[in-house]
């Protein structure tokens, strides 16, 4: 026990003197939390619109007014022909083209039916899909407006109408940041916990001090605990900074009990650190360790449900997420902060992460050999 205290003292002294680690712990969280939620903004607004009005009628003008007054769209230009509009799409000056065909108004009245062309730059599948979706709903809205107006005799409605009401729970303001920030915090804690711990053992290996320690009577678990504990503390510290910043900057106040987050984070970090130690013990140079860490981390984050919902993934990818601790952490953060989920609600997540922590650390300790 005493040995661990001596080792811990050494670790903390080394960390405090390590000029490269400190910026990671302080600067990076702030940097990421400030920039990322603003950068990762999928809230659709200011979609650049190019309208080609071949009809120049009252109705077409009405439509143009309606769509340009929407907060989603920004009228970039109103060229004379479709080809000019296409050019703008090519140059990325416009995102969406709406073409109102000649005879729009007259044909609508005469034939009862008319077609409008919507062309989108679909390179970014997600945003273009949403843009088109919004355009469509405005068009439908417009359709209903003129329909109600033009039908002179509002008879008793013979058509069955299903009224659909919708409500958005847990994030009524539809603030995209509420979605991103918990995820970013998860990334932060993961970065600190995993990358820093991965580099740690390798650094000793490279310096040769690990050999010296292997010759002393230190027990494996003492060595590993001494490596785990400082970064465990740092990880929780970074989490706290993250929570503070998200409160100060974004006004995010957890709906649920914040202690649940800490409890999960504590176990999560233990699991992560164990993984970092395994990576570290199996690397010979810092460069290798960095790479392995970076590789696993970026894959885990991509599959973690931060940028795309896990539900959308194909089965095989979903299976991978079952063994991806990051996705559980992101989930827990979101659920507690936004929905106020309770410990009982999250019992599955807790069980899984505890299993991870136990298994990974057992592997780390057993795999660490003082004698080769």
């Amino acid at each position, binding site marked *: 026990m005493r040995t661990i205290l001596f080792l811990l003292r050494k670790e903390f002294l080394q960390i405090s003197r390590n000029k*490269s680690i400190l910026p*990671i712990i302080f*600067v990076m969280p702030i*940097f990421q939390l400030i*920039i*990322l939620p*603003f*950068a*990762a903004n*999928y*809230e*659709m*607004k200011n979609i*650049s619109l190019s309208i080609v009005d071949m009809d120049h009628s009252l109705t077409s003008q009405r439509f143009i007014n309606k769509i340009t007054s929407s907060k989603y769209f920004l009228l970039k230009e109103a060229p004379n022909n479709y080809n000019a509009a296409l050019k703008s799409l*090519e140059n*990325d000056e416009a995102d969406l083209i709406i073409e109102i065909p000649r005879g729009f108004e007259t044909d609508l009245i005469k034939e*009862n*039916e*008319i*077609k*409008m*062309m919507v062309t*989108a730059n*679909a*390179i970014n*599948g*997600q945003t*273009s899909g949403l843009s*088109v*979706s919004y355009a469509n709903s405005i068009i*439908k809205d417009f*359709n209903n407006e003129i329909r109600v107006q*033009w*039908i002179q005799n509002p008879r008793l409605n013979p*058509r*069955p*109408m299903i*009224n*659909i*009401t*919708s*409500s958005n*729970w*847990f*994030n009524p303001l539809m*603030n995209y940041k*509420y979605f991103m920030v918990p995820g970013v915090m998860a990334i932060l804690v993961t970065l600190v916990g995993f990358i820093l711990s991965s580099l740690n053992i390798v650094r000793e290996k490279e310096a040769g001090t690990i050999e010296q320690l292997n010759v002393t009577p230190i027990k494996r678990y003492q060595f590993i605990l001494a490596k785990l504990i400082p970064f465990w503390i740092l990880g929780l510290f970074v989490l706290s900074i993250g929570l503070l910043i998200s409160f100060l900057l974004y006004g995010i106040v957890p709906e649920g009990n914040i202690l649940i987050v800490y409890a999960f984070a504590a176990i999560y970090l233990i699991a992560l650190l164990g993984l970092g130690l395994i990576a570290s013990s199996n690397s010979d140079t810092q*460069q*290798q360790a*960095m*790479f392995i860490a970076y*590789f696993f981390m*970026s*894959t885990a984050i*991509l599959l973690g449900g931060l940028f*795309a*919902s896990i539900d*959308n993934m*194909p089965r095989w990818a979903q299976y991978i997420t079952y063994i991806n601790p990051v996705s559980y952490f992101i989930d827990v953060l979101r659920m507690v902060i936004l*929905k106020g989920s309770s410990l009982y609600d999250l019992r599955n997540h807790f069980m899984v992460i505890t299993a991870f922590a136990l298994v990974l650390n057992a592997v780390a300790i057993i795999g660490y050999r003082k004698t080769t």
Partner: protein
Amino acid sequence: MKQLLVFIKKEFFHILRDPRSMLILLGMPVVQVILFGFAITNEIKNANIAILDNSKDEQTQKIINKIAGSTYFNIERSLVTNEQIDEAFKTGKIKLAIIFQPNFQNELTHTNSASVQLIADASDPNNATTLINYASSIILDYQNSLMGPNKLPYTINTEVKMLYNPELKGIYSSVPGVMALILMLISAMMTSIAIVKEKETGTMEILLVSPIKPWLIVISKAVPYFILSFINVTSILLLAVYVLGMPIEGSIILLFVMCVLYIFCSLALGLFISTSVSTQQAAMMVSLIGLMLPIMMLSGYMFPIANMPWILQMLSNVLPAKWYIIIVKQVMIKGLGFSGIWKETLVLLGMTALLILLSIKRFKIRLK
């Protein structure tokens, strides 16, 4: 010239003897492209939803069947009480709840009006909006089918054309991003680490004292990573085209030339970093925090730049990756020629030249 080859060979040996790093350097892009191509998609599929049918009649059953039959939704559970809705959301099991009013069929038949309530988990706002849209349109479809052959008067239909990426595949915007990131990783970070390593271990001084010109030493360090980057570009493109079905609309030669330009730019950046730091660890940290993160966040790799606040858009202009991603999209996906990318090419050339100049200056200062 022969000396140069000797040095280049030496650098290659360094790299080849580190199979783990090599594996990751060559394998990571492949993994990322596959993930982006197949796993990461915003297309809604099998979203878990719950149904609370307070009416349990023929009509509601028809609607429920229609929903169950759609690929968008997967009915995860049927609820019985309102209280269960909360729990279903809070345990993260469902993203949408559809609630039918009691006596649905009766009301609909006799008063021509009945209601359905949709509750979405708006933790992910876009997802929620999309789910509600899809559910609504299925229900409305059903409603229209009830009306039989009678059509609504004055209907505006829309014909939608999705250009460049008709199937809305996620990879179209992500493959350029993955290329930008990986190339930067290899060319900038690895090169800078390789150069700094020699500084750290003191072997740099030995090289400087030898009759080899310093710039030859630098080139010898850059060449292997250049080759590695090139291999990566090729493998990513091969994957994208043959496995993910992404087309190369424009000139392949132009595309490769632009990749080479970007690789040069990244190498110059790596060079610059190496003249500014003295330990490997510092080189790694600078690359990670100063390059990787900004690229992932601001270059258009994942998030559309147009949605960002003005300041971040300005910041993104500093990243070579941003310009490169634009170039790749224009050439590869839109099929544009040089006339469509001359601006961005100029920017990259300028950045490369600037970085090389700055590095030379710093290098000379250090030597003094």
